[in-house]
């Protein structure tokens, strides 16, 4: 079931991750969007948002972080894929474009106030 959003709205990915190592880590993540029809990839910086969001986690601990991106104003009626990227690691951290995660459907018109519906939990192979 796709996440319904409107052009101009923000997409927020809440990522939970665990530090399985012996030292405290600071990792940087981002959520990227891809317009299927246009084959356009959108990184947060292009929408005036921080390109990478740092997250600190103690050894053996777990933490959550919110990653923001924004649907451009001219993406109405688009089908949008998304992925989480760990800085320094090539490709998607969680799953690549068009994999099992539900896509984002951009509706016609303007977004309403807030549509806060967690729709998906995926577990990565790390």
């Amino acid at each position: 079931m796709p996440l319904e959003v409107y052009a101009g709205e923000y997409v927020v990915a809440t990522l939970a991750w665990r530090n399985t190592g012996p030292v405290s880590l600071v990792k940087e993540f981002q959520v990227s969007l891809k317009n299927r029809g246009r084959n356009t990839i959108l990184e947060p910086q292009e929408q005036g948002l921080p390109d990478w969001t740092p997250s600190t986690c103690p050894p053996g601990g777990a933490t959550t972080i919110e990653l923001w991106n924004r649907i451009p104003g001219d993406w109405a009626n688009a089908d949008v894929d998304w992925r989480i990227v760990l800085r320094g690691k090539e490709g998607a951290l969680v799953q690549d474009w068009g994999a099992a995660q539900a896509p984002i459907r951009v509706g016609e018109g303007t977004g309403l106030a807030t549509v806060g519906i967690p729709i998906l939990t995926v577990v990565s192979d790390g």
Partner: protein
Amino acid sequence: MTQQPMNQPPERVIIVQTGGGGIMGQLLPLVVVGGVAAGAVWYFTRRKGTNPADIRLDEVVVRTPEGLPIWEEGMTDVPILGGVPLIADIAWTNMGAKAVAPQFQFALRRTGATATWQEGPKASSPSVAPGVSVVTSATSITVPKSWPNTTTIDLKLMLIGLEGAWWLREDVLTIASEAEAFVEVLGVEIRAEGSYAP
């Protein structure tokens, strides 16, 4: 090569007599301990002509400079990061009749008989009286960041100036690239927001 226990051997340490003539840093055939495949080794030797039990290895813990253990008994295939050294905390006992002030050295290399051992600085212990147990810490070189992900590392702990018998123990550390090491994704949820409020 034969295995034999030392006088009052510490637990979980195997002494291997080489038949004499062992050379510092020489790689000897490894002994499988507890069914674990041969990998890295702890080397300890005895001073030529002295009782190998003069210095008894009681315990070794390898840790980060911040004090987080990355190797101790029972841990296997532990990932480590490039760019930081490893530190071996060596608990030992002077089993001889005279005070001793040994030097230890902690070396590592990429697993493989052709790789070169890279030795850390010598770590000196203050003079220790007979029967006394102490801990001496020895630092390795900085683990090279250039070593690729999944590289396995041999560790070698030496007692300087000694030759003859060898103490072996083994384990394998696996280096992991910092970019992806230690990050386990637990889950992701997405939602829409009408305004930006991080």
